[in-house]
């Protein structure tokens, strides 16, 4: 019963944060770009989220006749499912997680690599050339960045001597990993943005070039899933940054651990939005060469150095 409660709690929190982010992002963007943002529905435009949801739910759920229907339907589901599954291993506070896995980090990596399918398949199944282009870009981009997203975390793993997220957090009692693993942090951050294909790495959707990329043909709740999925991704990456580099729920005792956790996470979510507000989109080839030629070698060097130092210290 306890477990079921936790599952329900996690689901509730995650979905709410994701939905709330729709509003938060628009407001924050507006703030940084010196405009109003949604402010008509309810006090401070807070009702906007509900209005949007109602709109999405009731919109015609149109499946294009030229599409590969089965795949078209499955695709958005995959995104949401993999993201939600990953949250199962995220420890929000000591004991406040669904499943304390010994390979939690690998579980995250595995799920994020499966998440690619949703975009690739969605773009392909739409049977539309812009969507296909988006899907191709997505698969190349995400494959590239997945490689060193995993590798960038290996420094942390080496230092914590565990794949278990709780263990990693506990290992930071005497110092956040952001300091020794700064390179790893930067790379993970970049890779995280690319994984969630947020601006500036939103090349798969790039509305200026590809209309809306892989989800051009989607509408209704299917589009909603992609939409919410993106925010869930942002939340997840922020959670992981918090856990891996910023000591997770650890913090001075005047606040409960959960609060510390969400505070830190919130900062990173805002950072994601700040990026969107401020950075232009790079070209596709620039993105790829940045990945393969700079970030990958950097990651490998990071692993080598970390290993060497650890062995030296032993």
């Amino acid at each position, binding site marked *: 019963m306890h*477990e079921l409660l936790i599952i329900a709690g996690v689901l509730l929190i995650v979905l709410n944060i994701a939905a709330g982010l729709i509003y938060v992002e628009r407001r924050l963007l507006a703030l940084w770009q010196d405009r109003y943002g949604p402010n008509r529905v309810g006090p401070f435009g807070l009702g906007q989220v509900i209005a949007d949801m109602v709109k999405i739910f009731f919109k015609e759920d149109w499946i294009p006749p*030229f*599409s*590969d*229907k*089965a*795949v078209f*339907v*499955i695709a958005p589901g995959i995104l949401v*499912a993999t993201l939600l599954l990953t949250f*199962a291993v995220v420890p929000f506070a000591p004991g406040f997680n*669904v*499943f304390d*896995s*010994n*390979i939690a980090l*690998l*579980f995250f*990596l*595995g*799920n*994020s*690599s*499966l998440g*690619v*399918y949703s975009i*690739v*398949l969605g773009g*392909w199944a739409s*049977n539309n050339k812009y969507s*296909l282009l988006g*899907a*191709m870009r997505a*698969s*190349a981009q*995400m*494959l590239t960045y*997945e*490689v060193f997203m*995993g590798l960038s975390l290996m420094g942390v793993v080496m230092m914590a*001597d565990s*794949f278990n997220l709780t263990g990693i957090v506990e290992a930071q009692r005497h110092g956040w990993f952001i300091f020794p693993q700064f390179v790893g942090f930067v790379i993970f951050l970049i890779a995280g943005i690319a994984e969630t294909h947020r601006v500036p790495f939103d090349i798969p959707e790039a509305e200026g070039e590809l209309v809306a990329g892989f989800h051009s043909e989607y509408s209704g709740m299917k589009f909603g899933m992609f939409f919410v999925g993106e925010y869930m991704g942002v939340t997840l990456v922020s959670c992981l940054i918090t856990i891996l580099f910023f000591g997770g729920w650890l913090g001075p005792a005047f606040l409960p651990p959960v609060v510390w956790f969400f505070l830190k996470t919130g900062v990173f979510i805002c950072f994601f939005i700040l990026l969107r507000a401020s950075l232009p989109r790079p070209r596709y080839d620039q993105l790829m060469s940045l990945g393969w030629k700079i970030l990958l070698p950097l990651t490998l060097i990071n692993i080598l150095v970390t290993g060497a130092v650890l062995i030296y210290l032993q």
Partner: protein
Amino acid sequence: MNTFFYIAAAVALISTGLAISGRNAIHALLFLIVSLLAISVIFYILGAPFIAAMEIIIYAGAVMVLFIFVIMMLNVGMESEKESRWLKPGMWILPSLLALILLVNFVFMLNKMSHQNIPGRIIEPKEVGISLFSTYVLGVEIAGMLLLAGIVGAYHLGKQKKKVLHRFLKQEEIEQPGNTEG
């Protein structure tokens, strides 16, 4: 525990069979991915969580994406227009169902399973690493060379070259002027 194994194994078998018999390349690949997921579950049951994760990250996550990528580029789905007519709900319900069974299976496992239930010993990732870099370090080196061979080969074969006509096409080309004259 055995039940979980049989369920996963059945899913793996069925989806592999469907992958082989599938007419649509992308659908076949999707079945293959499901099969890989099922195999990963089996690994997990056997007490090899690291391999289970790797199975997903590398095979399901990377290799298969590349496959799909290539197939999308090859435009194998030319006939999907025709095939889409055959695509009744019955077709797509099956993969969803299989995946669903797997999911349920997995979730139950996560809850019901404590480590004592696992037959045999659980192999921690650390152990895997140690054995790879002590006993089997030469094997790892050799595997590295193996990949080198693969990379160099792929580079060579994949490199764009001047267009070469297939021998059948060559013949057609020769015949062409004759036809126009006629």
